[in-house]
């Protein structure tokens, strides 16, 4: 279960904006980030004459010569390698259509199933309404392709899922997965967090599952507070 957490961490963590990246500042669309020929526009930025101008609202980051803008609010935008939790919405000849709660629906090819599946009996493995954890393989104009080979991925059985705001996901995961690992440790539950905001919890009993959910919602509520890990530990102390 380690795998998906580390990869999910590529997204931003407002907390880490402190010393090493003092160059980070809040930027509004159309605002000039830096001037000069030395810089290159990265994601969320563009060149206009002599200036690098922001194309979206977020934190501007200057890494070497590249200037990019990272969003901190808004809906989930699918990206390659994101782990997501989705629900089977249709079965086609070549695979499953997965509702991933984003702008496009995901497609999971039949080859991604861990064992041979007869094309006539695809619902034996994944039926409409089943929930899967998958990874985004590619994002193209025609749709989003999913992959399901990897640790922690596959059909989710038992437990339950719920949703948080997608922009809060990095905080719930924590640095190197520290936050979710703490919650896993304290409750003994299995937790998979999708970048699209869906979270799956499975524990040995319903009480620990509810506790894990409350802990996650507690974290999601307080995204901008520093030293949150300690606060969560405190919270666990109180609720015992």
């Amino acid at each position, binding site marked *: 279960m380690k795998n998906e957490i580390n990869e999910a961490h590529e997204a931003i963590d*407002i*907390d880490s*904006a402190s010393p090493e990246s003092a160059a980070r500042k*809040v930027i*509004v*669309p*159309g*605002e000039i980030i830096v001037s000069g020929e030395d810089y290159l526009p990265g994601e*969320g930025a563009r060149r206009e004459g002599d200036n690098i*101008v922001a*194309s*979206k*609202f*977020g*934190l501007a980051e200057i890494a070497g010569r590249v200037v990019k803008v990272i*969003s*901190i*609010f*808004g*809906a989930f*935008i699918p990206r390659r390698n994101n782990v997501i939790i989705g629900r089977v919405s249709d079965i086609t000849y070549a695979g499953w259509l997965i509702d991933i709660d*984003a*702008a*496009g*629906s995901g497609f999971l090819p039949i080859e991604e199933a861990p064992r041979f599946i007869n094309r006539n009996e695809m619902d034996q493995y994944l039926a409409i309404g089943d929930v899967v954890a998958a990874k985004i393989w590619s994002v193209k*104009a025609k749709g989003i392709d999913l992959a399901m080979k990897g640790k922690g991925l596959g059909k989710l059985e038992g437990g339950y899922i719920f949703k948080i705001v997608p922009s809060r996901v990095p905080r719930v995961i924590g640095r190197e997965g520290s936050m979710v690992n703490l919650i896993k440790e304290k409750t003994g539950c299995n937790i998979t967090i999708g970048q699209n905001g869906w979270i799956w919890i499975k524990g040995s009993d319903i009480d620990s599952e509810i506790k894990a959910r409350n802990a996650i919602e507690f974290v999601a509520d307080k*995204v*901008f*507070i*520093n*030293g949150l890990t300690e606060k969560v530990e405190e919270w666990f102390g109180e609720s015992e």
Partner: protein
Amino acid sequence: MASQLKRSDGRKPGEIRKIKAEVGVVPNADGSAMFAFGKTIAIAAVYGPRQLHPQHMQDPSTGVLRCNYDLLSFSVSDRKKPGPSRRSQEISKVTEWALIPALDLKSFPNSVVDLQIYILQADAGTRTAGINAASMALAHAGIPMKDLVCSVALGKNDKTIIADLTKEEEDYKEGEGSTDFALAKLANSDSFTLLQMDGKIQPERVKEIIELANEVCPQIYEAQKSALKSIVESSEKEKKRK
């Protein structure tokens, strides 16, 4: 030179009403904002990008902006019958056109960005307050944008060009009467995305209106900018206090 016109609230002719701007007012939306010109209050909420239904509206080359503007029934003194009307449909459409040049939805084919604008309290200039709120809400939702959009209603009472008319000024009857000139522009360029006029004006005086717009819009832009920045900064301050 036209005699100085006394405005009932004591403003100078080129002065706009007090601006109030706030971001993140609707927790369930992907992006939201409130914008007020004096007594006119607008809120805007953005949902998406998400899949567009009905499917025949989908555009495989780009994302679509879908706008809905409406007055809430209690926003005016005579109760406004709820639901879409000819007027609200027209304003939804011009709002969409005023915002689309600032947006870049190329990376969201077949999807839609839904924008809801509601007027909580109306005292003239509702579409412009709505556009200002919408532009902030779209930015808040992380939608790729070239620029923010600033909007203001200018106009003329008798012979004096004035900024940001109230309802009372819109109904001005004396002399040449009242002219209402709603406009929107991209904040950091000279492109206008909305120009509407109600009433009469001498063609050569339109130039004065445009000049006044270039003077007033930066004030609106600053308010939008600081509202957007303050939601991040206030949360960082909270962090430091800890």
